[in-house]
């Protein structure tokens, strides 16, 4: 699990593999993976996120959120 970056996928908005799956092909550090025909987050790779935002740009339903944990906690202090 990432201690710096948290990537979230909103299941209610995600169109799923049959209709989309673009994030799986787009992410350069393989944060999205296919498990049992479903798109999931590979939590082991979350901290590899380069903040390129390609997933945010490619997702047609705005189902992805990338959070910088170090920033969130800083703001929350």
């Amino acid at each position, binding site marked *: 699990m990432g*201690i*710096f970056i948290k990537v979230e996928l909103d299941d209610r908005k995600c169109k799923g593999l049959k209709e989309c799956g673009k994030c799986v092909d787009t992410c350069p*550090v393989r944060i999205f993976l296919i498990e049992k025909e479903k798109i999931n987050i590979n939590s082991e790779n979350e*901290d*590899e996120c*380069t*903040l390129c935002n390609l997933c945010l740009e490619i997702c047609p339903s705005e189902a992805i959120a990338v959070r*910088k944990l*170090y*920033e969130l*906690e*800083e703001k929350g202090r």
Partner: protein
Amino acid sequence: MRLYEYEAKKILGSAGIPIPKGDLVFSADQVKEILDRVKAPLVLKPQIPVGGRMKAGGIQFVDNSGEAGEKAKYLLNSSLRGYKIDRLLMEEKLEFEEEFYLAVTYDRSKKSPLIILSSQGGINVEESSDEVITVRFSLLSPFSKYKAHELVSILKLKGPLFLSLSDIICRLTKLFYDYDATLAEINPLVRTAKEAFIALDVHIDIDDDALYRHPELKDKFGIENGERRTSKVTPFEKEAARIDGQDYRGVAGRLVEFEGDLGLLIGGGGASLTVFDAVARYGGSPADYCEIGGNPSVKKLKDLTKLILSKPGVKKIAVIMNITSNSRVDLIARGIIKGVIESGYIPHEKIALFRVPGAWEKEGTKILKKYGVKYYGRDISIDQAAEKAVKILQGN
């Protein structure tokens, strides 16, 4: 890269150029065994990667077998021209009539390989007033025998000597080409009383940029990636190499183990050596020399940090890089901090200093700040960073 004399001689011997009988000695105990094959009188030649050994008094002559062990022991406990002597070439001492000089090198101004030949070789060749013959040639075709004959004829040699020297010139030019050498020098090339030429001392430099084309040097002499291994790879170094090999991204694991207490993750276009030297100069004792560069994955950096922190005696780590345009500070910070945390330590207690002026500094600063680690960028030099790291480790 300059080859040791014994390595250069092996190459010459394989190329068919006559060399004296001899063998390599790493300890005085081996001398006896070699004396069965090489008889006195002998010459003991320290193998160091610089010349001028004779003038510095490093070459020892041995008239009888009895004193060989003693002299070898003395030399193997000495230093010569700043190098600790760890190996000797023990060779038969040859009687000779004349010393010649023969070299193949590059004439950089003319962008052409060049043969240099003189009938006056030896240790004072630079001061020789004798004629020095030079001839440029093309690497597109081998240096032909007739051209060699033409060259040697200037020296007015006759018969077997004429043919023998011509042959050596052809073989040396081929060897120069085959090994991507920048210099293949025989000095002296001696003429013995038996009318034969023998290469008494040899110096070969191989173009560093071409070393990747010579994997055979690893098997022959342990030279790999332009570096010479004089000691065995430790399990610690092996593990670091495994970590670096996890994926192709960046460098994180080119490591040499030392015995100190300050773990180093250093890099940036050769700056790693500067950092290492500066740490030592300020009284620090590095636990390792470990290059990082490019953009290694967070996992590679994390695993490498964990490895260094697992080494007994390591008190703190210092991350010091030169100014780089591509290495991302935030990704390096993530990897290092994660490694420290997963090792069970508190980042600001274990990281003596973090000086990485690179890309994404703002993000990197935020991460480091969260974990209480001060960020240094262009505000301090590599030298100052090394000094600070040593002082912090020493509690000053």
